[in-house]
């Protein structure tokens, strides 16, 4: 598929904008206290990701990427957030997210992580194609920000949101560095993600049954002797 030079220029800038948005949503998640909003942010992140993937598909003419864009839209922007939303209702999780360290400190740590990610990814970015230059750094930064979120949050659901955001970051890394993994691997990864999600659902209900709560502070009984 050939695109005119005009579209290519606009497309590349648009892609940069989307990448920046992805990172911003990562920060917004770090700062967010309410679980419900957190899930909405996750859905937005999935949507931006799908849009970005579709744009890369358009610019590079890789047909396989269209499939992954569709898959991302269905799975990460719609299905998973919707299920999480329902889960939240059915489990009647209430209250705000309890962070281990306060939010301004978390955000500062996040900035440090982004700088680290960019310097680590610099040699790789130099080798990527013109369209996606510099995006590996953003992807790695998004992954690290989700790590940070998983570490600093107490509630099981917010850890899962962090987990899924990390998945989004990895997917973005695959798209921007290598224009997507081979189809069979991508399908395998998607399958694993789906099964993992189902297992998590089962797991939540088990937790609910046993602890009557979704707060992970109940889960601190195993102590090193």
């Amino acid at each position, binding site marked *: 598929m050939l695109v005119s030079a005009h579209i290519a220029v606009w497309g590349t800038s648009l892609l940069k904008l989307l990448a920046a948005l992805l990172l911003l949503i990562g920060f917004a998640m770090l700062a967010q206290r309410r679980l419900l909003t957190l899930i909405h942010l996750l859905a937005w992140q999935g949507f931006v990701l799908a849009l970005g993937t579709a744009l890369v598909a358009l610019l590079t003419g890789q047909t396989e990427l269209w499939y992954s864009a569709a898959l991302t839209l269905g799975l990460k922007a719609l299905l998973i957030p919707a299920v999480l939303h329902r889960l939240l209702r059915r489990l009647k999780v209430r209250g705000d997210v309890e962070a281990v360290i306060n939010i301004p400190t978390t955000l500062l740590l996040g900035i440090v992580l982004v700088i680290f990610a960019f310097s*680590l990814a610099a*040699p*790789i970015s130099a*080798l*990527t194609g013109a369209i996606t230059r510099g995006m590996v750094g953003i992807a*790695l930064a998004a*992954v690290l920000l989700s*790590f940070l979120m*998983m570490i600093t949050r107490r509630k*099981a659901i917010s*850890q899962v949101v962090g*987990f899924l955001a*990390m*998945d989004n970051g*990895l997917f973005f*890394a*695959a798209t921007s*560095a*290598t*224009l997507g*993994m*081979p*189809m*069979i*691997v991508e399908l*395998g*990864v998607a*399958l*694993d993600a789906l*099964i*993992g999600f189902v*297992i*998590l659902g*089962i*797991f939540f209900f*088990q*937790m609910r*049954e*046993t*602890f009557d709560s979704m707060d*992970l502070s*109940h*889960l*601190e*009984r*195993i102590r*090193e*002797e």
Partner: protein
Amino acid sequence: MMLILLTLACAFVGIPLLGLWGYGRPGGWIFVAVNGLTLLATLALAGQVAMTGGFTAAHEQFVVDDFSMLLVLVDGVVGFSTALFSRGYMAREAAHWQLSRGRMRLYHVMFQTFLFTMLLALLTNSMGILWVAMEGATLATVLLVSLFRTAEGLEAAWKYFILCGVGLAMALFGTILLYFAAQRVLGSGSQALLWTRLDGVRGQLQPHVMAIAFVFVLVGYGTKVGLAPLHNWLPDAHASGPSSVSAVLSGLLLNVALYAVLRTKVLVDGAVGPDFAAHLLMGFGLLSLLVAAFSMLRQRDVKRLFAYSSVEHMGLATFAFGVGGPVASFAGILHMLSHSLTKSAVFFSVGQAVQTAGSREIQRIHGLLEHSPVLGWAMMLAILAILGMPPSGLFLSEFLIITSTMHAQAWATPLLLLGLGVAFAAIFPRLQGMVFGRSPWTHGGPAPVTMLPVFMQLALVGLLGVFIPVILVQWMQHAAAFLS
């Protein structure tokens, strides 16, 4: 060529079968039968590899060579004996915890899925599918760890899920970078992740990218190997799940994860030079050995004790591959094999002992020999073997690792000896307490048939320590040569 697919098919067919009938008496027997067939298929595969050497199948999507063959064999043996053990053991656990039919079915299906993903990880040629299989193995075992639905089990499973999930995410990022480096040489498409192709062009892969990729892969799969400082999930997961699950976690999962690291190491060595990966492996290995040895001193729970012992042994094997050279790599492979067989035997006997005593606390377990000589001897021999007493294969491998370390990396020898000594001091006195003394229980002994797998595997470990069959020696030498 068909034998690879046959092996995988044997393991795969078990999943739906157990999904339908995986409870009660028939469930246990189907589980045994499926894994018996899988073992036969792996033996046939080994026969073919012995005759023709390694080969690929299905358009290079699957591969078997000397290194993976050794691990596939161990996989077959441990899978089969675990199924044998699980039949009697789980019947008693099910009665104790009042597990429903559905729960037993879940157990069998997840267990079989895990065994299938292990074989898939070893036999696939694609580094991408290898990752998918490792992730599948994690997912399959999460619900096994929390099978009894105790608070402790749920916590352990959650920790396992999150830590290993994060680890595997790192490994995926590493795999993406690997693909990125391969793309510039092999072009896009699934052939660029095929290990055999990558091996052919490993000198041309971009060194900078490969170095970063290896760090991510090592930290990622290293989490699953149980390398410190990311080993925290391992003792919890081993302690909370059924002992049959602990046996395969230690016996199969850790090995396969290390296998994934080593496959990547071969590629990275070609691109970056051998020192880079070697130093990282030595550092992580030594750290794990020491951390685990000192943690063992503080353990009061018998399953946690041996879980830390797994960290210690995997650390030692990782260190050996870091030292490199034909002798140390040979010892590393031998260590992986012997550790798998021995540690699963240890968990079989420990599982039985915990059932007898009704507690996992070491202080509550005593007088096993008087209570049941079969169980007492099984436990004593298994634990002596894991301590590296001759004629266990672990004695031979540890001896080789120490001597080659003295030769190549003399500075590390005292640390190595310190770790091994502390580990010995942590386990040996407790063994005496558990096995000797007066038995407080007078009623009912454990069914002796379930101790058969222990003796079977210990016999194999003894064989590895005294007389390794020629063909295995050849495979190990070839594998050692290609790893270093």
